[in-house]
C-alpha cells in the first residue's frame, strides 16, 4: 500500500517536473526556431513587398529586421506586443511609429529570449533596422535606463528615433516585474 502511494507520487513528480522543464525549455527553443521561419517570411516580404505570415495560422507578420553587428544579433521584428507575438520574437508597439516612418518607433521583447542582449548594448552602439521596403536605417544608442512600467509615456518625435524595451532586472525568476529596461537610440 505504502509502496503503491510512493510510486504514484514519484510518477506524478516525474510527469509534472518533466512537463515544467520541457515547457520552460520550449519557450526558449520556440523563440529560436521561430526566428528561422521568420527569416524566411522576411525574405518573402522583401521580394514581394507584401505582408507575409510566417506560418499559416500566425496572427502577426514581420515588419523589420533588427541587427546589431557588434553583438552578432539578427532578429526579425513582428507586428504587435501581445504575449503570443513576443513568444516568437521582438514586437513593434502598434501605437508607435512604423519602423519605416520618420518618427519614434518602439520595439519590445522578452528579457530572457529575444531582447536578452539589451543588457550588453552600450552608448554609441549601432543598431540597424531594415524596413519592409528594404531600406537600412542605422541608429546610434544614446542612453540606457530603467523605469517603472507605469511611468512610461510615449513621446512623438519628428526624426528617426528607436526605443528598445524589455523587462528588468534581467536575472530574476519573477516573470512579473514592474521595471523596464530601456535603450534609446537615434538616427546616426
Amino acid at each position, binding site marked *: 500500500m505504502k509502496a503503491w502511494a510512493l510510486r504514484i507520487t514519484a510518477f506524478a513528480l516525474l510527469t509534472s*517536473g518533466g512537463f*515544467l*522543464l520541457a515547457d520552460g*525549455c520550449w519557450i526558449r527553443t520556440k523563440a529560436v526556431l521561430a526566428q528561422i521561419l521568420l527569416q524566411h517570411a522576411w525574405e518573402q516580404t522583401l521580394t514581394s513587398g507584401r505582408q507575409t505570415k510566417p506560418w499559416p495560422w500566425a496572427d502577426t507578420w514581420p515588419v523589420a529586421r533588427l541587427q546589431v553587428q557588434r553583438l552578432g544579433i539578427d532578429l526579425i521584428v513582428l507586428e504587435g506586443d501581445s504575449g503570443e507575438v513576443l513568444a516568437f520574437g521582438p514586437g513593434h508597439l502598434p501605437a508607435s511609429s512604423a519602423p519605416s516612418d520618420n518618427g519614434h518607433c*518602439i520595439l519590445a521583447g*522578452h528579457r530572457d529570449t529575444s531582447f536578452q542582449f539589451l543588457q550588453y548594448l552600450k552608448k554609441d552602439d549601432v543598431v540597424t533596422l531594415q524596413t519592409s521596403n528594404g531600406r537600412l536605417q542605422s541608429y546610434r544608442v544614446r542612453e540606457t535606463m*530603467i523605469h517603472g512600467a507605469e511611468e512610461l509615456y510615449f513621446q512623438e*518625435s519628428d526624426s528617426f*528615433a528607436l526605443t528598445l524595451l524589455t523587462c528588468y532586472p534581467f536575472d530574476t525568476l*519573477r516573470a512579473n516585474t514592474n521595471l523596464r529596461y530601456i535603450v534609446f537610440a537615434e538616427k546616426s
Partner: protein
Amino acid sequence: MANGKDDRRRAAPDPGNTLFIVYVGFVMFIVLLSMVVDSYAAVDSSENQEVTLSGIRQGALLFATNGNEGKFVAAPQLSKDVEIYISAMTARTMVRQRFVNGTDQWQEAIYVFPLPDESAVDQLRMRIGDRVIEGEIKEKEEAKTVYEQAKKEGKKASLLSQERPNIFTMAVANIAPGEEIEVEIEFQQVVALSNGIFSLRFPMVVGPRYIPGSPGIHDREQESLHFSGTGWAMDTDQVPDASRITPPVAPSGEQNLNPVRLMVELAAGFSIARVESLYHGIIVADEERDVKLIRFDGNVKADRDFVLEWEAAQQARPQAALFSEKRGSDTYLLMMLSPPILDSSKQAPPRELVFVLDTSGSMAGTSIVQAREALILAISRLTDHDRFNVIEFNSTASKLFEHAEAADAEHRKQAIRFVSSLKANGGTEIAKALDLALDGKQNHERIRQVMFLTDGSVGNEKELLATIASRLGDSRLFTVGIGSAPNSYFMSRAAVMGRGSYTYIGKTSEVEQKMGRLFQKLEHPAITDITLKTSSGRSLQSYPDPIPDLYAGEPLVVSLKIPEGTEQEMLNISGRLGVERWQESLNLKTLAERSGVATLWARKKIRSLVDTLALGAKEDHVRKEVLDTALTHHLVSRYTSLVAVEKQVSRPLEEDISQSVLKNNLPHGWQAQKIFGGTAQTATPAQLRMIMGVLLLLAAFLLLYWNRRQRV
C-alpha cells in the same frame, strides 16, 4: 504474492521502462536544445555597463536604485509644506520639503520638481534637528564640486540647480538611516493678470516624460518643454494649448506619494470679490480687512497644479500699480501698465493686414486644410475699414494684389477664392516671403499686422530672424504654427523679433477658437513703441526689453531700475496709438515699498539675457552678465546653483552612501493616456519553470531511490 508480481513484470515486455527511456531522451533533447539557445544568446558581457541617471536631467522620473549592487532600495519619503504670501502683484513662496530616510542605509536623495515659469529662486535652507544651514549662491560647476566634496567627506549637503527654466533638481546627501532632513526653498514671482482676473499657479508635479525624440535638445530648450515643463502649467506663447493637458479626470487610485500641505495668505491690496481654487478643495478664512487666508481642505495629493484665481470687487478694479524696493543705493520698480480705456473705434487708425501662407510640400495633408480654414476665417472677419493682401509661398513667393487693397466685399470674395484653390507642394523659401511681407517702412497712419501661417520647417533660422529684425519697420509679426509638429522654437523666436505673438493650432477643431482669440486682440488698437524716461530726459532700460505692445485687457508687468539721483523726479511713460501720442506720468516720490521687487527685476533681466542667446548672442558674454546679476541677487539660474553644506561630518566614511531618486505622483489624468510598455509583458516564466521542473524531477528520483533501498 510479491514474488509473483515481480515475475510477471520480468516476463512481459515492460512498456513502463521503454516509455521512461523515451521520456528521459525527450527531456535530454530539450535541455540540450535550450543550451544551444543559451550559448546563442550569451554574447560578450565583458562590458556590462551601469545605468546612468541621465533620465533625471531631462525631468524624467523616476526610479530608485542602489548604484553599487544593482539592488533596489526603498526611496526616502517626502512631504511638502507650501506657504505662499501674495502681496498685490508679487508672491513669495516658501516650499519646505521633508526627506525621511526609512532605510537602514545612508542615502542621497535626488528630487526633480517644477516651479512656476519665471520664478526667482533665491533661498535654500537645510534644517537638521535644531541646526539651520543657509545655502550660498555659487557658479553652477563650483556648487556641484562643493556638494560632491561634502558628500564624499560624509557631510550633510544639499544642492539646488535649475535644469530648465522651470524645472529644478534638489539633491540631499548623507541622510542617516531613520533620519529626517528638512530643506526649505523660497522664490519670488509675479501674479498673472488677464481680463481683470488675477491668478497664481503652483505646479505640483513634473510630468513623466518619455525620452525626448527631438535632436539637439539643448538648442531647442523651449520646444522640448512641451511635455515636461510649462506643459501643464500656463498657456504661454510657447505652449498655448498647454491647459488642455490638465483635464480633470477620475483619480487613478494610486498611492499618495508626496502629500502636500498648502497655505496662502492673500493680501490683494483691494477688496476681493471672488477667490477660487480651480482644481483643489480649499477653505477660505478672513484674516483681517482685505486679507484672506487659504488652506487646502485636508491633505492633497500632488498630482495637479494648484491654481488660485481672485477678482477685485467691481468698484475697486485696479488700473495701474507701481511698487518699489531699495537695495543699497539702487531703487527697483515693478510696474503694471494697463491699457487706457478708449471710448470708440474712431480713434483707432486703419489697419493693414498681410496674410502669408506657407504652401510648401511639408504643409500637405491636414496642415494646409487647417491653414486655409484659418485664413478664410481671417479674411471674412475684415471690415471695409481695413486694407489687406495675401502672400503665398513655396519655392517662390507671390502676392495676390500688387498693393494692399481695401477689404470690401468684392476683394474679400476674390481672396477667399484664391486661398481655397491653394495646394501644397514645393520647397520652403520663407526668406522670399518675408521680403515681400515686411517693407521696413515706418508709417504711423496705419497699423500694419503681418500674419504668418506656416509649419516653420526651415534650417536657416538665424538668417531669417536677422531678416525680420532688419525689415520689420513698424509692422508687427504674428506667427501661427500649423500642423502636428510645427517648429515652435523658430516661430516663437520670430514672433519676439517681430514684436507680435505666436499662436499654435494643433487640430482643425481648434482653428476657430485660437484664431478668434488672436483676432480679438488684433482688432483692438494697441499702444506701441512704449518707452520710459525720467522727467530730466534720461531713458530707462526695462525688462522685458523692448517693452511689448499693450493690448486691451492684457496689462503688462515691467521691471526696471532707476538711476541714482532721480528719485525726486517723475517717470514718463510714452507710447503711440496710431498717429496719436500717448503719455502718462508717475510720481517717483511716493512709492509703495514691497520686498521682492529687486529679485524680480534680476530674474527678468536674466531671462532677457538668456533669450538673446537664441538670437545669436555670444555665450561668453551672456554667461558673464547672467553670472554677475545672479550672484549679486542670490538667484539660481542657468549658470548658478545654491548649495548648503554642514560643517561637521556625520557619516562614518566606512559606510557607503546609496543614491535614490524620489518618485513623484503622476499628473492627474495622465495615467490612462498613451501608456505603453506597461502592457507589454516582456518576461517569460521559462527560467522559473525550468528550475521548478528540475527540482520536481530531483524529488522524484530521490523518492524512487529511497523506495528501492527500503525494498532491498
